[in-house]
């Protein structure tokens, strides 16, 4: 009999794919139509629906002085993307630093520290959403809305734009331009992210997610609590320590885009395990769908735009294969439970009353299956929100989300960035395998030559470099070691997890590491910056080179990239490249922890 946990996982996957295909087609439509043609489709009905959005799009172009029909070469595209992101970063930094004089600060929070503001600005602009701070104790409503939520939209839209530019490089031939960054950015927000977020936000409110400008709720408990989840008030009003606060705020609007844009930065410190962020099993299910929806749908968009949906499906199949394997790696040890608890006589078997398994650090309303699925989904997509504490997972189960990030966030991955990362792996796969069939390798008819290999090498080189060097720095410095809360191999896992998360723009936190220190704020900030922009620029350069090339017609001598053999190879290359890079580090972290758990009495 299939357990209810597995059933929920299967149901989740089915709903996900069913929704992703139409969304993928819709996005292909949106990115595909040319500004000159005014309307995306011939169907009058669809156009009527889209008319308000098109009007909004054109309004923005007029206001910003963007000429939508003027396309850009890769250099201009990359420059536009970089400058736009740097401006966003600077703005977010300033809002945080100045929040104490700005309105919308009902709790009277002080300016965010320079290192934390830097970290957060880079984090949200780079779609990482690593949070060194606790939301309700650090950020004012205005900062959350104007700084963080806006970046949630723009970072996701930037990722989408880079992907679409690369997609055009495959679909076009012998031209110089890969699109207009501002058009791609605007369309991503107006046609895709805004409508989806609006619907999701309203749904979340229906489930009990808070959305208010009202301040925090203060209450006096009937009984004095021994241990408070929320620390006693230290507000300047000098209220008695028996008064407690419940943080509130405009959360639903931020959480919707946090999930859809694979951002993951929680409104509250404990992120999606907070009852006001993720109150019910249904909200949990829908939020998980929102996390993976766009990255999965983009495979369909890509296939459609390059004129071969099968190629998009092959990429999706490779991602799904790794996803399912990592899910099993996470779920099975978790459900089996912790042998240490068993020794203590704690019941961990599934029964009618309990889902069983290792419940340490988990919410009872989600249980093991939905916690494991959430952990894997958020680390597969570069979402990084948590609904359980990964730190408390069985070591092998904790390895799964860590590995998913270390593979380069290409298993679904971030919005846009996941697929463009995967395409880089596809290029490398085609290069190695293409040689084995005796032809200069080509992907989707584009020859893969020295320049393409150079750019691809940069893309696969930077994230491991940032992870390994960052971790090495942290374990070698006093400042780095100061933040580690656990000793032994687990402490190492915590640091490795943090840098894996930052350099791959995930933002997931293992917990157990006090990262809101100048060292970690700066080190992780740099890792996030490198992980995003040192990849996006070579990807655009690759696009610029590919778009100039002719498309080689397909023949029997062409290596197919839409069959199972290719899927298998692609999985192999992703796992071997990612795995070989991190095996020694993982051996000193979760692997040795697992072995110690089993074999050391």
């Amino acid at each position, binding site marked *: 009999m299939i357990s209810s946990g597995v059933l929920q996982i299967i149901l989740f996957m089915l709903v996900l794919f069913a929704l992703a295909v139409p969304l993928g087609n819709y996005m292909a439509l949106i990115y595909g139509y040319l500004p000159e043609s005014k309307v995306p489709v011939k169907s009058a009905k669809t156009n009527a629906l889209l008319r308000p959005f098109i009007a909004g799009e054109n309004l923005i172009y007029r206001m910003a002085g963007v000429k939508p029909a003027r396309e850009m070469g890769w250099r201009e595209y990359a420059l536009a993307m970089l400058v736009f992101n740097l401006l966003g970063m600077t703005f977010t930094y300033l809002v945080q630093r100045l929040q104490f004089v700005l309105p919308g600060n009902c709790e009277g929070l002080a300016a965010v520290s320079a290192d934390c503001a830097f970290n957060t600005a880079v984090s949200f602009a780079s779609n990482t959403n690593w949070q060194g701070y606790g939301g309700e104790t650090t950020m004012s409503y205005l900062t959350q809305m104007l700084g963080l939520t806006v970046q949630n939209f723009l970072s996701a839209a930037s990722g989408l734009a880079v992907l679409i530019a690369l997609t055009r490089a495959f679909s076009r031939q012998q031209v110089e331009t890969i699109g207009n960054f501002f058009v791609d950015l605007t369309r991503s927000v107006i046609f895709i992210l805004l409508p989806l977020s609006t619907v999701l936000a309203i749904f979340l409110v229906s489930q009990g997610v808070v959305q208010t400008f009202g301040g925090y709720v203060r209450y006096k408990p009937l009984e004095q609590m021994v241990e408070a989840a929320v620390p006693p008030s230290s507000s300047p009003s000098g209220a008695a320590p028996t008064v407690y606060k419940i943080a509130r705020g405009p959360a639903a609007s931020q959480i919707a885009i946090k999930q859809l844009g694979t951002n993951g930065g929680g409104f509250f410190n404990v992120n999606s395990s907070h009852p006001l962020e993720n109150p019910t099993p249904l909200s949990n299910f829908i939020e998980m769908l929102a996390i993976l929806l766009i990255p999965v749908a983009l495979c369909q968009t890509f296939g459609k735009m390059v004129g071969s949906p099968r190629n998009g499906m092959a990429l999706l199949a490779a991602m799904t294969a790794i996803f399912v394997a990592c899910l099993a790696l996470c779920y099975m040890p978790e459900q089996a439970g912790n042998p240490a608890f068993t020794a203590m006589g704690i019941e961990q078997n599934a029964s009618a009353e309990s889902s069983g398994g290792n419940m340490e650090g988990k919410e009872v309303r989600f249980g093991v299956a939905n916690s494991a699925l959430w952990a894997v989904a958020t680390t597969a997509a570069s979402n990084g929100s948590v609904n359980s504490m990964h730190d408390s997972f069985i070591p092998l189960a904790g390895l799964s989300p860590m590995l998913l990030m270390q593979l380069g966030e290409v298993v679904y991955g971030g919005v846009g960035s996941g697929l463009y990362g995967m395409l880089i792996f596809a290029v490398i796969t085609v290069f190695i395998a293409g040689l084995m*069939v005796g032809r200069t390798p080509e992907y989707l008819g584009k020859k893969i030559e020295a320049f393409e290999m150079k750019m691809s090498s940069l893309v696969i080189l930077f994230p*491991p470099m940032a992870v390994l060097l960052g*971790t090495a720095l942290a374990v070698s410095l006093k400042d780095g070691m100061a933040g580690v809360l656990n000793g032994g*191999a687990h402490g190492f896992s915590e640091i490795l997890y943090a840098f894996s998360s930052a350099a791959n723009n995930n933002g997931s936190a293992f917990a157990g590491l006090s990262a809101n220190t100048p060292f970690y704020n700066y080190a992780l900030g740099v890792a996030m910056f490198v992980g995003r922009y040192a990849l996006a620029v070579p990807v655009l350069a690759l696009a610029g080179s590919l778009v100039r090339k002719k498309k080689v*017609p397909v023949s029997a*001598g*062409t290596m197919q990239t839409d069959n199972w053999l290719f899927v298998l190879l692609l999985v*192999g290359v992703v796992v071997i490249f990612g795995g070989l890079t991190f095996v*020694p580090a993982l051996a000193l972290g979760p692997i*040795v922890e697992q072995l110690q758990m089993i074999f050391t009495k």
Partner: protein
Amino acid sequence: MTQTKNNSKSILDSAILWKAVIDSFVKLDPRVQARNPVMFVVELGSVITTLLFFAALSHPGEAAPTFIFSISIWLWITVLFANFAESMAEGRGKAQADSLRKSRKDVMAKKLAEASLKSAIKAVSASELRKGDIVLVEAGDTIPCDGEVIEGVASVDESAITGESAPVIRESGGDRSAVTGGTRVLSDWLIVRISANPGETFLDRMISMVEGAKRQKTPNEIALNILLAALTLVFLLVTFTLYPFSSYSASVSHGQPVSLTVLVALLVCLIPTTIGGLLSAIGIAGMDRLIKANVIAMSGRAVEAAGDVDMLLLDKTGTITMGNRQATLFVAAKGISESELADAAQISSLADETPEGRSIVVLAKERFSIRERNMQELDAEFVPFSAQTRMSGVNFDGREIRKGAADAVEAYVLDQGGTYPEEVREAVDNIARNGGTPLVVSDRGRVLGAVQLKDIVKGGIKERFAALRAMGIKTVMITGDNPLTAAAIAAEAGVDDYLAQATPEEKLRLIREAQAGGRLVAMTGDGTNDAPALAQADVAVAMNTGTQAAKEACNMVDLDSSPTKLIEIVEIGKQLLMTRGALTTFSIANDVAKYFAIIPAAFATTYPVLNKLNVMQLQSPQSAVLSAVIFNALVILFLLPLALKGVRYRAVGASILLRDNLLIYGLGGIVAPFIGIKLIDMLLSSLRLV
């Protein structure tokens, strides 16, 4: 001198072997190694471990000196093996270059003031000749430099270049006017205009190509090198950061951090040394295979492009069909027996020395046992073919037998007062439709019937084209025939397409169109009128018998002048790329087992529990590391024959090739080192070496 023919020297030619061994040491020069990032890192590792060994001798080092020494030695051996692989590949080319160079001995040339036999002769050294100079070459002289015959006709021994001992005719004008420096005139004389300056001749280019002296990395090789360098950098990072990781682990657990020696060993095992060490050998060996096929490539780029070719332009005559048309059928007119027709046709052809004429004689003999008769005995008068009559024939014994083009014979018969039978007209149309050329035979006013001359498609060529199709290569037949004939032959030979009534302009247009559609086109040519198309094609093979213009425009020269050589060239190109891909895959796949050997060993003191990952049950940490390093070195040597010979190529589709190669080199690459390392470990411990 037949060096190019007899170059199937075994891989283990002792002279080359010794030279290669010595070269392996010479190449330890870091300036040489720096060209190859992978092997440079290995050499660096060798130096570091050597220093560590000496440090360990004087005061207690990080590990036992014997262990550091063994690792250091095997790292040096790894570099030497890679050098040896390259030297072996180069050695075979160099041997050829040496023998070619002998034919470049300086000769005295007879320089003429003007292109006339009467002109004054001035003796100058060949090395002083410049482009445009005019020289006289007489029987017994060596042609001093590449050039074009402007007067005279002579037989020339070109065996120095082609290895073919039969002399060839060189004459002014036409497609046989090119002469190559270093070849020898056997009879008569030639006046030659020099077409190349010293150092730029065909022979010079050939020497530099086979020698690999100016070997430049080919585009695909560069791309692969980038990937290998990136991998090397990744693993450099992995091992570099492993030290702090390990000292952290040691501080929270117990034991010693990983030793520098083990880190270097791990690094060398992880970086793709197998492909890194063999990469240049693969490239050189690919050129070598081409030379063995008697083809000289002007650049390595062309060889790679050959693997990519997806359209072949093939001349009909000589490539697809036998050189000449042959009589295959007699169709007699009403009231005339076939043997009667055959008899008349044979008599009319006895004096006709053209291959078509001979084939009629032969067919008549085969079919009706009609013996050849002596023209003298018959007292016959031969009427030769002329452009006006478009007939030939014979008059004897009151008969006037004529054979010729249908319309010509028809006019002749009607003129004689005869009639042209309807069934013959039909037969003639039929023959033309089937790709044959009809000849009509008549005797005075009487039409005897028609003879079918047909192109004979070479045996096995259809299968060859089917194989090419499976490889994804489109074949296009080029012919001067009319479209009807061309279509019939194309269908019979199984080519994908044809270009009938081809002119140089048409050929050029066809190539341009195909290239605009993204195809890579290969073609063979010999005549001057092929030069524009050759220059446009991606892979252009000129026949060695061809004109200077054709040779200038091509990027490969076929010394055998064999029209089917193109197919072989494509296979060699594919084989070259496949060998690279296979060894890269093998090299990367190897790393899995090496991790299983080294990781438990490296942290044996810090986390003894990691020994659970020692799935190969290696004897001791030291033995595990050493075994991995030894395996890593030996595998270069084991795979050297494969690198030199190339991965076997079969003409099957890409999917099957990929699947098979993936099984052998991917899966094999994962499994082989588990077995190899275990065996070495067993050997080491049984010999008590660790």
